């Protein structure tokens, strides 16, 4: 180690640590760091890229012959379900990574810097949104390759993409809060599989809900995931002649998802930020 480095006076922090400008810059710096981590972490990319491809291929090739959709084609029907499932599971990254950062001590570094606490969380959810968007593009290309078509025009198509991403962003805040609370990252993985698998399977993601046993059908028709899938399915023009169940969320799926996502953010952003301020590393 050489010792003679003149102190660089310019390197004293100049900007005050408050204000929108420094907040945006902090958020961007943390987002950038998280994106680099994705790029250097093959497991993560594999999960984000290969898993959606696998799901699209498996479901469309294995079930297309045996599951009937009234007046429609199963591949078309299925895609919105797989998109919904993928963004839901993609959001669990936020929780896992948050818990991981706390465990590895990285949060201790952030917390001795004069940065905005909330930037750590926004940088987290932003990066995960980007990852989810990439997953989505890949899934859609795979879908197109196996015969999926959206039939309501581009505007409606983009609306469908947007609603999936909005939900995934809002839900990643729920997972972020969980990531701050749980003792180890593994808990997030186990817990999310225990909760999210039933949530996607007892829904309209892969089958029409009127084919389910009565009790499950009722649950499925009120399940928020059903509303998400229904919204995307309608916007992609993929519902066929399948009847729309007559619960309010299923009749108004787009409104349900948008209002639901806003509610999630209003509740969970402040909760997560507040909880993060109190959390120390493990």
């Amino acid at each position, binding site marked *: *180690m*050489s*010792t*003679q*480095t003149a*102190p*660089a*006076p*310019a*390197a*004293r*922090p*100049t*900007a005050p*640590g*408050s204000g929108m400008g*420094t907040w945006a*810059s*902090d958020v961007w*710096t943390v987002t*950038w*760091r998280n994106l*680099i*981590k994705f790029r*250097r*972490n093959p497991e993560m990319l594999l999960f984000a890229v290969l898993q959606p491809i696998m799901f699209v291929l498996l479901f469309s090739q294995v079930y297309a012959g045996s599951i009937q959709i009234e007046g429609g084609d199963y591949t078309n029907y299925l895609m919105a379900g797989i998109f919904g499932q993928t963004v839901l599971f993609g959001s669990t990254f936020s929780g896992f990574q948050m818990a991981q950062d706390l465990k*590895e*001590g*990285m949060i*201790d*570094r*952030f*917390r*001795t*810097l*004069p*940065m905005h606490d909330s930037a750590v969380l926004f940088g987290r959810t932003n990066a995960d949104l980007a990852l989810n968007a990439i997953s989505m593009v890949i899934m859609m290309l795979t879908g197109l390759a196996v015969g999926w078509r959206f039939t309501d025009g581009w505007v409606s198509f983009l609306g469908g993409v947007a609603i999936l991403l909005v939900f995934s962003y809002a839900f990643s805040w729920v997972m972020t809060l969980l990531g701050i609370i749980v003792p180890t990252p593994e808990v997030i993985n186990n817990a999310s599989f225990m909760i999210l698998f039933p949530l996607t399977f007892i829904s309209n993601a892969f089958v029409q809900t009127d084919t389910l046993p009565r009790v499950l059908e009722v649950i499925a028709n009120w399940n928020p995931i059903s509303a998400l899938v229904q919204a995307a399915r309608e916007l992609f023009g993929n519902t066929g002649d399948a009847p729309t169940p007559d619960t309010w969320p299923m009749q108004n799926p787009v409104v349900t998802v948008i209002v639901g996502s806003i509610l999630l953010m209003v509740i969970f952003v402040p909760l997560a930020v507040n909880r993060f301020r109190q959390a*120390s*590393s493990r």
Partner: protein
Amino acid sequence: MTIIEAQDLRKTYRSRSGDVHALDGLSLSVPEGTVKGLLGPNGAGKTTAVKVLNTLLRPDSGTATVAGVDVLRDPEGVRRVIGASGQYAAVDEHLTGRENLEMVGRLYHLGGSTAKGRAQELLEQFDLVDAGDRPVKGFSGGMRRRIDLACALVNNPQILFLDEPTTGLDPRSRLGLWEVIKTLVGEGTTVLLTTQYLEEADYLADDISVIDHGTVIADGTADELKAQVGGHRVVVTLVDAGQSGAAREVLRRHGTDDVQADSAGRTLSVPVDGGPQTLQQVLAALGEAGVELHDAGMRRPTLDDVFLTLTGREQADDTDVDVKESA
């Protein structure tokens, strides 16, 4: 002028197996431009104290100011003027060394190009230019330690908190870091460091606080502390550890305080009043008792003696330092 001041800090960790009073009325004060060393056995509360002062942890009670800023009321104001390196390196594994430094620079709001320039300077200063563009994942423990320390210096902090900064460093890197710290202090930086290496405290620290059970049990310069444990010591090394009982008995008769032994029981020492005559008397008495010596001499007390004397008596078995034995 006092730049770090802590008053009566208390922090209790609650767990199923009972409460741990990690800080139990700890007070500290560090004058500007000096180095304060915190010494103490494992679990004494050193890390907890440092974490309260660098805003990572809120104490249950007590007050602390850093550079005149209240740690509890304005943590962000404190963060702007300090640099901190914890006991375990807090760097991002997947980022390169350079990216870690740049990220920290940006989060200090230095601006992109200043952050880049500062990263380069620090890589050079810490001898990491070659490795700087590889992900930290592939760094050795010592390199990780160095990049972590470099992160703490990005903003040219006015006050530096270092928790066991040289643990895991090879001798060359350790000396290198000592020089870095000396240089920074020469430029006016105040340093609070904890260490397990007493020679490190001896070399770097202007003032030392010995901590045990969450409170300061002794305070002063290295020389003052050494004076507290008495003047010269007679030290003997035995040929056969089996004779340590007899040797201890002789030393006890000539000494002014308890006899200390290393873990093997071969090297014994005791503080004495007199000069070389006392050594002669001890040697004669040992000869009469038939104790064979490998080595014998007198020396001034070291910080090790201070440490053992001050923390040895009621020390639990959670420490790996040599156990002091009463004769």
